[in-house]
């Protein structure tokens, strides 16, 4: 039984409960505690997905910063792909490139891979240990170092602080 994993899952589930119900009535809060507690006990005790995550103020601030960076990247690259689609010449230059990540924790790698996929123009196809294979709609370089910097440099720096 992993206490930290269970508590982290409980906090997350209870936050979602608060957002969905939108009230602070006593009965609703108690019901939310019971449901979130039960679920996190059932599903949290045998896994360690959230176990490494420490809910400190620093992590919270960096997570917020990460959300802002991610949103800006999503907007930028969405416009970029949309412009490619309406361009009559269809200016694409696709290919699968290999990049290397410095992140160690599985959770950090998962979030990094999903962020890469979320920003259009890049699509994570496979992960083998610390190598990501990424379908890039406009290949600028095949060199892993430069490609890593180009695709995920911004994300990696912040995630390194959060997950280590």
């Amino acid at each position, binding site marked *: 039984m992993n206490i930290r994993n269970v508590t982290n899952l409980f906090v997350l589930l209870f936050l979602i409960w608060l957002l969905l119900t939108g009230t602070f009535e006593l009965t609703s809060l108690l019901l939310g505690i019971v449901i979130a507690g039960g679920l996190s006990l059932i599903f949290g005790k045998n896994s360690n997905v959230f176990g490494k995550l420490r809910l400190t103020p620093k992590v919270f601030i960096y997570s917020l910063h990460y959300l802002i960076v991610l949103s800006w990247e999503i907007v930028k690259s969405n416009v970029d792909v949309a412009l*490619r689609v309406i361009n009559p010449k*269809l200016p694409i230059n696709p290919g699968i490139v*290999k990049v290397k990540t410095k992140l160690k924790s599985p959770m950090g790698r998962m979030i990094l891979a999903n962020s890469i*996929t979320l920003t*259009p123009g890049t699509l994570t196809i496979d992960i083998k240990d610390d190598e990501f294979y990424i379908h890039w709609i406009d290949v600028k370089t095949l060199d892993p170092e430069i490609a890593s910097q180009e695709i995920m440099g911004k994300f990696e720096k912040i995630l390194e602080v959060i997950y280590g």
Partner: protein
Amino acid sequence: METLEIIGALVTLLGSIFIFLGGLGIVRMPDLFNRIQAGTKASTLGTILSLFGLAIINEAWIWKLLVIIFFVLITNPVSSNVISRAAHFRGIKMTDKTVADLLVDKSNKPGEE
């Protein structure tokens, strides 16, 4: 009140334009991987903007809509990742414009594992 509704409607309209461009991308792109790029992802911003426009129109829904946006952000990349990975291992042909495919060079061709 009136102006908020108009702003919300405009944001939702902008979102639906992005979703339309995503659909157009599915038609125009030459192969599966590029279709995933355009289809599932030009629509990310479209979905977010549409929901955000609704949140502006009706403030009571804002937290619920934020939760929906959160779930879209979590589930969207997983599905496109799984589809593209399966397609690559199945050996779906890539377009002639493709510059490089470093995943194939890695001696793990599909069916030979």
